[in-house]
């Protein structure tokens, strides 16, 4: 049974429809990621579920209970904010105790919960510090700790890693995934970073202008994007997009081929191209080429490329990895 269910939920700010009515079901224990470009309504959707915004239409259910008008504190959800939103005048311990005190728990059980959670997150050393005395990564842990102590029905994360540096971001990402396995709790995670979405999610919800473009596992989204938007949003470097004659030859308005699915073949090959730029990352290289009929094409290959800038080469898409889209950008199957 779905644990969180949106039924025709919509949100209008003034006369701007930020979220047109949408349906979505999130299962118990699932890790769902809302991903989309900035301004696509990810935060708004999350805040509707949290109860920080009132819906303009439709209903929201948690465990079968209609909570559309329930105040945010009574929905049993915990949220980790982008800015962490720790209470600056309280110590870490007091920060974590706050939700439990508000819930009217006894002093002894509050202390026990805090000790346990602090142990899990390895923040016992910081318990008596103020947030200002912690680094960004430590604050992040405390914010997660404050969410965990309450033992909520589901966790909501709004771009929790965007204030961390790259190294910390990937390690915290792993920790959140471990935490998800450990707790087995439902998590909804908002990000604009498709790498985060692909690596963390059980299921990804791709949003664009408040509309759900596709819902599916990372693999499904990668292999069978429902439309051009999803095809181009998921995967890096971006999928090559080819229009015109070359596409018409395959009976499509547009075709898309991922850079890792194009091979360099000397002379022969479907498309003739000139090498323009080479990015060598060590383990792999991205060869940027310009093709005569297909326009700019990026080729991703493992190891170092066997070509030089200015070389004339032939390019061939791998069989079965050409995505075809109609004139409206919908996938042709």
């Amino acid at each position, binding site marked *: 049974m779905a644990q969180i269910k949106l039924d025709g939920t919509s949100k209008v700010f003034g006369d701007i429809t930020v979220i047109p009515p949408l349906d979505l079901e999130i299962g118990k224990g699932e890790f769902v990621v809302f991903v989309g470009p900035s301004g696509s309504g990810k935060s708004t959707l999350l805040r509707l579920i949290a*109860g*920080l915004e009132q819906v303009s239409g439709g209903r929201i259910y948690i465990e079968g209970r209609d909570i559309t008008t329930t105040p945010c*504190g009574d929905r049993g959800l915990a949220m980790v*904010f982008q800015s962490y939103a720790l209470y600056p*005048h309280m110590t870490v311990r007091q920060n974590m105790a706050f*939700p439990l005190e508000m819930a009217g728990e006894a002093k002894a059980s509050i202390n026990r919960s805090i000790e346990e959670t602090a142990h899990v997150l390895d923040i016992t050393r910081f318990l008596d510090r103020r947030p200002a005395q912690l680094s960004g990564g430590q604050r992040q842990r405390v914010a997660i700790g404050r969410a965990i102590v309450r033992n909520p029905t589901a966790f909501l994360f709004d771009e929790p890693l965007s204030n961390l540096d790259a190294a910390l971001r990937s390690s915290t990402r792993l920790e959140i995934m471990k935490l998800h396995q450990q707790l087995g709790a439902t998590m909804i995670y908002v990000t604009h970073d498709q790498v985060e979405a692909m690596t963390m999610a059980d299921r990804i919800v791709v949003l664009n202008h408040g509309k759900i473009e596709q819902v599916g596992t990372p693999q499904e989204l990668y292999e069978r994007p429902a439309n051009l938007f999803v095809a181009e949003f998921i995967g890096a470097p971006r999928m090559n997009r080819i229009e015109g004659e070359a596409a018409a030859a395959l009976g499509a308005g547009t075709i898309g081929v991922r850079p890792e699915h194009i091979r360099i073949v000397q002379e022969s090959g479907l498309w003739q191209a000139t090498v323009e730029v080479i990015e060598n990352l060590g383990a792999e290289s991205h060869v940027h080429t310009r093709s005569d009929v297909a326009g700019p094409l990026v080729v991703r290959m493992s190891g170092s490329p066997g070509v030089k800038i200015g070389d004339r080469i032939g390019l061939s898409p791998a069989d079965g990895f050409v995505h075809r889209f109609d004139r409206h950008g919908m996938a042709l199957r």
Partner: protein
Amino acid sequence: MRTIPQQREGRLLLVPLVTFLLVFLSFPALVDIVYALSDVTFQTMRAPELVGLRNFGTVLADPEFWSACWFSLRFGGLTAFIECALGLALAIFLSPIVCRYGWTIAILMLPMMVAPSMVGLMYRLVLHEFAGPLPYYLTLWSGTSPAFLDAGHAFWTLVVVEVLQWTPFAFLLFHVAYISISSEIREAAAMDKAGAWRILWRIELPMMKATIAIALGIRFIDGFRVFDNVFTLTGAGAGGSTTSLSIYIYQSFFKGGQIGQAVAASALLFFTSLIVLYAGGMLKSYRERRRVAA
């Protein structure tokens, strides 16, 4: 290049500040110290006759000095407290309106734009026993009107006048502190099941603590040394009932011509505030040390 040893460099950098202090403070301070220790009138200002601590003794033995101190203390404390309480309430309850319509701030700020002496004069007219409109209408409607400026009521009249003029100042400080609390903090507290009152008491007020302390301090100092609006509204007041410390010093200086005593009184005021400030600083650092140790 020759390098200057660090200690000497530090002293070198202090030179402008010290020069400034010497030029602007040392002359008046020296004169003050000399006068406070001398028997001096307007006639003998250029030839003060040193008499030791006699002026201090006279001032400390003067019951009027003590009643002026008491007036200033009561006035400063009371007005600071009321202004901050009102300002805080306004800042919190009006914040949705003020955030939405920025121009309302200008209206709320209006009383602060008027010179305090003008405010005193204005209320002197408005509250005048025979000419003032307020006593007139009060008598018209209820048959009687309190004598706002007599010995029994003058203190409270002054408190109301001061509060009306300076609450906007406290409001402005609190408004800025209140809106600078990030909305995510409030939302986090709401998600943590805290209601509006608990958010106010547990989150917002503690986060505004420093601003509240500063506003109380500034308003207390301003109320304690009050002069101009009291001077224009009631002067020393009937039977000296509104003699603030500043008015006491002014009177002994210009009216009594007892310059030595007046300066001694102001020196006492200076040392007292120095001690209070120092004690406050000690208390703060003590509490900090205790917190770090804990």
